[in-house]
């Protein structure tokens, strides 16, 4: 057994252990902590699978933002959580479910072992046209050139999710601000971190968006870091979430998708197809779309964490 394979085995065992912990933990809080650790370990797996772009996304969203969201929900629901094991389903039911899930796992494992060799791949096609797009990172080229429609729809899905979250607000709070994210007990060290880290984090986020054209990185990873900095300042009590009815909030949220759509429609005249870029302008358009999307995605992610409006509109 080579050293690399031994390392991979250790990593796989750790991940399975974290997953079992997450499912089997008696109360919610340790389960969520286990899930965050699971996300961070998955980041290492993505590096081992030679997918640094995905690793960055998994670390920022899978381990980071999802963790904040779930931990926040856990602490708000803690009072209502029934004592562990009080409402567990019966043993025969659990055994039956375990049997069926094992069957599913076995089927997927069989598929993994029977994957065709040599594996089908679109890498040569992606590499062949890379010079036409002007970007050096093939994943960015897929996201914003070859499969730009997916990314456009994705930015719409983010907005739809936010609309869904907002629509859960009671009528009297509609248009108001989400509840404050600040900790109940103000803490000097968190407020220091909230002031020292955001300048560094914003530079780092912008850097990751910028290098995403040619190296691992991109708008979702960078936007998540910027959005996380916003959430941090809100948690430190340095900022409060904005009222959702304000015009500037709405403009920032839709700017990315709207610009993307406008470029796509302009493609009909300039390049003969929806979302086609005119020759020679592909890279500058891709970078412009990334910049516009970064701001919108960062704002959307921050407001998704903040939740529905919970305060009446100030008049």
């Amino acid at each position, binding site marked *: 057994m080579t050293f690399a394979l031994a390392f991979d085995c250790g990593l796989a065992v750790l991940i399975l252990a974290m*997953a079992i912990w997450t*499912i089997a933990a008696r109360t919610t809080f340790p389960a969520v902590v286990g899930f965050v650790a699971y996300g961070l370990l998955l980041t290492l*797996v993505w590096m081992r699978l030679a*997918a640094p772009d*995905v690793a960055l996304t998994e670390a920022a969203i899978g381990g980071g933002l999802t963790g904040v969201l779930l931990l926040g*929900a856990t602490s708000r629901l803690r009072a209502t959580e029934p004592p562990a094991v009080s409402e567990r389903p019966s043993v025969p039911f659990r055994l039956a479910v375990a049997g069926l*899930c094992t069957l599913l796992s076995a089927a997927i*494992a069989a598929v993994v072992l029977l994957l065709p060799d040599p594996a089908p791949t679109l890498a040569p096609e*992606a590499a062949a046209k890379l010079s036409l797009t002007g970007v050096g990172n093939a994943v960015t080229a897929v996201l914003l050139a070859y499969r730009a429609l997916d990314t456009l729809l994705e930015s719409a899905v983010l907005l739809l999710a936010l609309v869904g979250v907002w629509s859960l607000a009671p009528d009297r709070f509609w248009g108001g601000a989400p509840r404050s994210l600040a900790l109940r007990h103000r803490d000097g060290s968190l407020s220091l971190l909230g002031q020292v880290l955001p300048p560094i984090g914003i530079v780092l986020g912008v850097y990751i968006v910028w290098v995403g054209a040619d190296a691992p990185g991109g708008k979702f990873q960078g936007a998540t870091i910027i959005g996380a900095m916003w959430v941090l300042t809100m948690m430190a009590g340095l900022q409060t979430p904005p009222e959702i009815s304000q015009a500037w909030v709405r403009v920032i949220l839709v700017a990315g998708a709207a610009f993307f759509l406008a470029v796509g429609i302009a493609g009909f005249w300039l390049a003969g197809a929806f979302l086609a870029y005119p020759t020679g302008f592909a890279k500058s358009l891709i970078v412009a779309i990334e910049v516009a999307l970064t701001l919108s995605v960062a704002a*959307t992610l921050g407001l998704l964490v903040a939740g529905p409006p919970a305060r009446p509109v100030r008049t």
Partner: protein
Amino acid sequence: MTGATLFGLCAAVLVGLGLYGAIVHHLILRRIVAFNLLGAGAFLLFGVVARRGTGAGMGGDPVPQALVITGIVVAFSATALAVALLLRLHAVRAAEDADR
């Protein structure tokens, strides 16, 4: 056995574990966590397929990788919506209990 196959088998187990948790758990928040665990396992399968498709000087097929990045972001927004629904449900229930 290669590292990719190993992680593929790992992903198969993760999907099964996540599904088990999503069915068996009584608390909705635990189901959301389990469902996210299942989703991460499914993404990992994509990663294994991508890794096997090395070529043209790339470490893996970029198309599944891009799909996974999209998937992770969409999974997060779905989770945020699910958590918001859950919190609202609890708020409504608490208000009903207070009325009674």
